[in-house]
């Protein structure tokens, strides 16, 4: 009989609902396949992730999954894993390295692309004319940088589109709401704002509340577009308060397990990048999507 596969998963933390869902799914998918999953929570710190990978190597696991908190800084620890012949899979974020052989594959979406999808939807919706306020993620974090980059590409293509204000909402509801409140005041009671683009759904939910409290109608007076696809944004969409979200699936581990099992079985190396879909959702399907998701989270 086969020995149970042991996988060490260095998770970033649980800084958002999406992240917690990713962990939860990873566990569920491991159970389905009879894999023994060891999760180490890095509390948002890269140094903790590196420590975790080192200690996975010391423990002699069969594979290591990393959801890297930053793109850089993995070379030396991954080298150790490679020397110990332990395959590494990256989940939901890519890393920057000169030596791609350091990891087996990466299961991620393209965060720049997500920004593009959101931007394209907005451009289409408004005929390329829109004064956008942007709620950025945590300054310096890679999704914030990339989602801004992708969106900016579309803005650059549409002369009628303009980002009139941009500030960091730290990926949280509370900050999203606070920042949106000031945006509304700064832009003539919100009259100058055509849409809000939030780097994640949580900030969008906060922004929706701020818009309502200012006496405006979210989804109508000010369009709301965001990224992630957590249940709450589908709920808001079904109530007509949000307009679009780009999904980032929390099931990153599933494809990774499959690739790993295949690799262990007949040594078939998976493609270097297993890209997950960045699907756009709009209010028409919101209700059903909400029902489908609310338990996965």
């Amino acid at each position, binding site marked *: 009989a086969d020995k149970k596969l042991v996988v060490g998963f260095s998770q970033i933390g649980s800084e958002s609902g999406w992240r917690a869902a990713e962990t939860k799914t990873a566990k569920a998918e491991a159970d389905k396949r009879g894999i023994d999953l060891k999760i*180490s929570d890095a509390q948002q*710190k890269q*140094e903790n992730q590196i420590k975790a990978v080192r*200690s996975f190597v*010391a423990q002699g696991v069969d594979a290591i999954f990393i959801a890297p908190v930053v793109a*850089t800084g993995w070379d030396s620890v991954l080298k150790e894993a490679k020397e110990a012949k332990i395959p590494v899979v990256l989940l939901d974020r890519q890393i920057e390295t*000169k030596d791609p052989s350091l990891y087996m594959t990466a299961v991620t979406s393209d965060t720049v692309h997500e920004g593009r999808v959101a931007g394209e939807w907005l451009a289409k919706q408004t005929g390329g004319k829109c004064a956008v306020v942007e709620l950025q993620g945590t300054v310096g974090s890679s999704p914030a940088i990339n989602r801004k980059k992708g969106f900016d590409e579309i803005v650059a293509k549409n002369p009628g589109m303009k980002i009139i204000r941009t500030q960091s909402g730290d990926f949280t509801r509370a900050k999203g709401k606070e920042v949106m409140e000031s945006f509304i005041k700064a832009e003539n009671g919100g009259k100058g704002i055509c849409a809000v683009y939030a780097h994640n759904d949580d900030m969008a939910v906060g922004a929706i509340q701020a818009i309502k409290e200012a006496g405006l109608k979210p989804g109508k007076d000010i369009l709301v577009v965001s990224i992630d696809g957590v249940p709450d944004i589908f709920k808001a969409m079904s109530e007509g308060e949000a307009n679009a979200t780009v999904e980032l699936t929390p099931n990153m581990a599933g494809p990774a397990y499959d690739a790993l099992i295949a690799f262990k079985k007949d040594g078939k190396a998976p493609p270097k990048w297993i890209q997950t879909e960045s699907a756009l959702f709009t209010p028409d399907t919101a209700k059903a999507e909400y029902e489908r998701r609310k338990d996965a989270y």
Partner: protein
Amino acid sequence: MTGALQRFLPLIVTTAVLVVGFLLCAAQFPNFASWRVVGNLLTDNAFLGITAVGMTFVILSGGIDLSVGAVIGFTTVLLAVLIEQGGWHPVPAFAVALIAAGGFGAAMGGVIHVFQMPPFIVTLAGMFIARGLGFVLTTDSVPINHPLYGELNDMALRFDFGLKLSLPALLMLGVVLAAVVLAHWTRFGANLYALGGNRQSAELMGVPVARTTVAVYGLSGLLAGLAGIVFSLYTGAGYSLAATGVELDTITAVVIGGTQLTGGYGYVVGTFVGVLIQGLIQTYITFDGTLSSWWTKIAIGVLLFVFILLQKGLLVVWAGRGGEPAEA
């Protein structure tokens, strides 16, 4: 020498706690008691240890330095920008980073002394500034690809019995040794303890308060800069959000190591042991591998509490009622 025994008691107790903790872990996990784990413990906590040495000096002098984590982050970014975007050789970049970090610390010390502002606040502002400067340089994480980095990373002292001491680990051990000498065999060290014992008395005894204050924050900044270099070696990158929250980790290590936050009492070696205890807690949790994010946090808190209780308990048992250090 019962007097000496009593003086070093907190240190002995802390070390005993570390050893007991390690043995317990080893009993639970078969792979734990290996040289690899020991080596990892030293390497992974090198930057923390180096920073904590500086923090020990600051706390001994009766102050506190909240800026260290941010200075580490800033240093990594500065190095990355100089080396990758400026095309510098790493060695002059290291020098510049050390000077910048040390100067930054000294400036905070100057503000603290001249304006008689609480160190907590001045260094908190310093933390904002250092992080902010990092953001201004670049918000991206920048990989450092200079070949020297690879060479430095491969450098290690290997022992026949299996222990491997990486460059960061060696650096930390060196810093700890130098710090012990500085604390106990120089006038500067004596002045630090004096300042922390009682600032007014120290002044009345002729301790150069201004110079010492500036120097100790300068030193803390310098060591944070060195830790930044180590961190950039460790990750091979510069990132403005690197090492967030490290200030609290270092303060915890210093205090677990038996140094009084009110200043004047404590040992550098104790801090070193404190860092290892924290590293041990981390390693234990990773080895366990079943803890969710929240249980991890709870476990860290509980273990911290247990270590502190153990320490207090051992002190009381071994020293009787008089051994408990005063606390304010």
